[in-house]
C-alpha cells in the first residue's frame, strides 16, 4: 500500500463516516457539524486528485459560506440548539432500503465501468481553468466556458437578491379575510 492509497483510504473513510453521521444524527446542528467534516473530506479528495483550485473553492465556498448559512438557518428555525426531530422506523426502513438498493446498483455499475488507464499528466491548474472560464481555450479549437460563467454570475446575483428579499423580516398584514388564512 502506497502512501497515496493510504491517503485516499483515510480521506474516503472520513468522508463516508461523516456522511453517515449526517444521516443518522437526529439533531440538526449535529448533522451540520458532520456535514462540515464531510465537506472537508471531499475537499481533501480534490486536493488528492490534483484539483487544487476546486479543493480551495470547496473549502471557501462550502465550508466557509454554505455551512455558515446552514448552521445559522438551523439555529434560527429550531427552538433549542439540539432540537430532535426523530425519524420513525418506517422512514428508516423505507429510506434506508431504497438507498441501499440504489447504492448496490450504483456500485455494480461503477465496478463494471471500464477503467481508464490512469494518466500521469497532472490536472490543469488554476491558470488554464480560469482562462477557460474566461473564454480562452486551453488549446486552440477546444471548448471554452465564457457563456456558462456569465450565466452563473447573473444567476448568483439574482439568487442573492431573491434570498435577501425572501428572508427580509416582514410583518404579515392583519388578515381581513380570515377564511383566506385557513385555505
Amino acid at each position, binding site marked *: 500500500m502506497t502512501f497515496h492509497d493510504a491517503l485516499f483510504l483515510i480521506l474516503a473513510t472520513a468522508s463516508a463516516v461523516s456522511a453517515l453521521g449526517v444521516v443518522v444524527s437526529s439533531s440538526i446542528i449535529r448533522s451540520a457539524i458532520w456535514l462540515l467534516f464531510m465537506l472537508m473530506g471531499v475537499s481533501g479528495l480534490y486536493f488528492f486528485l490534483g484539483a487544487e483550485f476546486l479543493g480551495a473553492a470547496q473549502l471557501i465556498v462550502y465550508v466557509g459560506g454554505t455551512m455558515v448559512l446552514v448552521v445559522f438557518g438551523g439555529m434560527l428555525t429550531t427552538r433549542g440548539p439540539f432540537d430532535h426531530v426523530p425519524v420513525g422506523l418506517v*422512514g428508516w426502513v*423505507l*429510506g434506508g432500503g*431504497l*438507498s441501499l*438498493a*440504489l447504492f448496490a*446498483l*450504483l456500485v*455494480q*455499475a461503477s465496478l463494471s465501468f471500464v477503467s481508464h488507464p490512469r494518466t500521469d499528466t497532472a490536472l490543469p491548474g488554476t491558470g488554464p481553468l480560469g482562462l477557460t472560464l474566461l473564454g480562452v481555450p486551453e488549446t486552440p479549437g477546444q471548448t471554452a466556458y465564457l457563456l456558462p460563467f456569465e450565466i452563473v454570475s447573473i444567476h448568483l446575483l439574482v439568487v442573492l437578491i431573491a434570498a435577501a428579499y425572501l428572508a427580509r423580516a416582514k410583518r404579515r398584514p392583519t388578515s381581513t379575510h380570515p377564511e383566506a388564512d385557513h385555505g
Partner: protein
Amino acid sequence: MLEFFAEHPGRLYVAATLLPLVPAVLILLIGTVRNLTRPYADVPGIAGWLYARLNHPRVELAGAWLSIGVMGLVSFIAVYGFTTLLYEHYLPRLSGEPIAPWNLDDTRLWNVNADGGQIDWIRFGSTPVPDAELDIIKAHSIHLGYWIEIDTTVMFAMVAVVGTMIYVFSLGYMRNELKSTTIDETLQHARRGRFGRFYLYLNLFVIAMFNLIIADNLLQVFISWELVGVCSYFLISYYYERREAGWAANKAFIANRIGDVGFLIAIAISWSTCNTFMIGALGAEMPWHGALEPLFSPTMRTLLGLGLFLGCVGKSAQFPLQVWLPDAMAGPTPVSALIHAATMVAAGVYLVARCYPLFTPDALLVIAYTGCITLLIGGTVACVQTDIKKVLAYSTVSQLGYMMLALGVGGWAAGVFHLLTHAFFKALLFLGAGSVIHGLHHEQDLRKMGGLRRKMPVTAWTMFIGVLAISGFPLLSGWYSKEAILTAAATFGVAAPSHVVLAVVPFLVAGLTAFYMFRLWFLTFAGEPRDRHVYDHAHESPLVMTIPLIILAMFSIAVGWGWPAWEPEASFLYELLNHQHWPSSHFWDDPQDPLLNAATLLHEYHLLLELIAGAIGLFGFAVAYWRYVLRTPRFHATNTEPRGFLGQAWYFDAVYDACLRKPTQNLAVFTAAFDKQSSDHGAPRSLDGLLNGIGQLAANTGRGLRGIQNGQVRGYVTILGLTVVGLLGMLAVLTR
C-alpha cells in the same frame, strides 16, 4: 308459347307454380293501398277516392274469384301434365319390366338438367387452389330447378284439385269476413273483416307448396318448406285477437323450426360432402345406386337421412313434434283442411318418398318406428277428444304415422298412395266439419251436437263417405291404401320378426280409426240433439260449400279404383306407383332379400290379412255404435272436458312445457340479468357491470394515485428514488 312448353313440358309445372302469384300480388297491392288510404277516407282528394273504390266487398270477391279461376287453371294444367306423362311414358311400360326409379332417360324431356331445367340462383366463382386433389369439389352455383316424376305429377294434381275445392268452399265459409265490421265469435270482439287477406295467404301457400313438390334440390325444398310454414303460421293466427291462436301459431312455427334444424344439417352434409343439393345427384352417390367410391361414410349417410327425416317429423307432425298440429286447429277450418290435413303436413311424407334412396336401412327403421309411435298416439288420443276439429287433427296425426310407417318398412308405393287417398277424404272430412261448424254458428263441441243428419243431410252423408273411406270400408279409396300399408307392415314383420311390433300396431290402430271416426259421426249426426238451442239454429250450408263436399266425396270413393275392383292390389294408382321398383338391397344388406320372400309368402295369405283388418275395423265400428248410438245417455254422464292420460294427449304438452319452454325462458331471463342489470351499483353483478367496473377501476386508480401527490417532499423523493432504482435495476438486469 306452346312450343316453349312442348319443348320442355316440365316448364308447364313451373308456370302452374307461379300462376297464383298473380292474384296474390294483386290482392297484396290492393290491400296495402286500401289500408294506407283508410285514414283519408273522409278527406276529399285522390286518397279518399281510392279508398272508397277499393273498400268494397266486390273488390275482395273479385280477388277470390280470380284466385279460384287461377287454381282451376292450375288444376287443369296439373291433370293435363299427369295424363300426358302417363300416356307418354308410363302406360306403354306398365305391362313390362319394372321401371328403375329415377331413370331420367324416361322423362328426359320433362327434366332437362343440362339446358333449361335450372336457373342459377347464386353463382360463385371457382377459387383455384395450388393442389386440387379433389377435382370434384367445385362449387359453382346454387341453382333452382324442377324435377318431374310420376309421384310429382300425382301429388301436384292432388294439391291443385283439393286446393281448388277448398278455395271454392272458403267463399262460403269465410263470407262473414266480407263485412266491413264482423264479430269474432269467440271473443265477442268487433273487428274489420279480412277476406282478402285469407286468399292472399292461401295463394302464397299454394305457390310455396307447388314449388316444394316440383323442386329438384334440397335447398329449394327447404325454401318452400319454410314458406309453407310461414303461411301456415299466418293462417293459424288468422284470428289473431284470440290468444290461443297466437300461441298455436308460434308453437307450430317453432316446432317446425326444430325440425328444420335437422333439415339444415342434412343440407349442409349434402353440400359439404357431395357439393350438390340435387336429390338425384345425391342419390347417385349412394352405394345402392352403384357409386363405386361413395363420398359418404355410412355414418354420414345415416345422419343425412335422419336430418332430413327430422325436418319431416316437424312438418308432418310425427312423434315427438306432433304437439303443434292439434293446436293448429285454431285457424279457420278450410285452412285446417288444406294445410293441416291434405297438403302441407303431407309434405314431410312426400319428401321422405322423394328422397327415398337417401335413407339408409338404419334411418328407415327409425322412420318406421317413429311412424308407428305416432299412429298409436294419434289413434288413442283421437278417441277421447270432444272438439270436432281436434278429433280430425289427431286422426291426421295417426294417418301420417301410417304413411311414415309404410315408407319405413319399404312400402314406398303404399305410403305415397295413402298420402293421396288420405288427402281427399281428410279434406272432405275437414270441410264437412267446417260445414257443420258454419251451420252451427261456430260451435265445435261434439257434446252439443247430435241428430244433425236431419238438418244438414248433404254434409252428413258426404261426411259419412269420408268416415267409411278412412275406416277402410271395402271399395272406397281408403281401403286400397290401408290394405297396401298393412300388407307392407306385415311383410316387414314376417321378414324381420324382431320388429314384429311394427306389424301389429297398425292392425290394432285400424280398429281404433274406425272407432273414433264413427264416434265422431254418430255424435254429430246420429241420435237425438243434445243441445236444443244449437240444433234449432242449425242449417245446411249453401251450395258453394256443399258442391266441393260432393266432388271430394266422389274422389274419396273412386280415387283408388282399378280392375278388378275387389282386388286391393289391382288399384290403378297403386300399381302405377308400385311400378317404381326400389332394389331391396336398399333395405337389407342381405342379398337373400327376405322382404321378397316374405312378400311371396304373404301373397298366399292376403285374403286372410284382409279379413283380419276388416274384422278389426268392424269391431271398432261396433264399439262406437254400441257406445254412442245404443247407449247415448252414458255419454251425458261423462260430459266433461277430456282428462287423464289420453285427454292430455299423453302429457306431451305438459312435459315440453316443464322441460323445454320454462327452462329456456328461465335461461333467457337469467342470461339477460347476467348480461346487464338496470341498477348495478356497488359490486358488479353482471357482465356489463363488470366491464363498467373495469372502467371504474381506472378512475379509482387515478383517485388513489392522487393521494401520492400530496405535496410531501419526502414522498416525492422516495418515488423519485424508487424510479431511479427501478430504471437502474432494469438496466442492470437487461445489460447483464
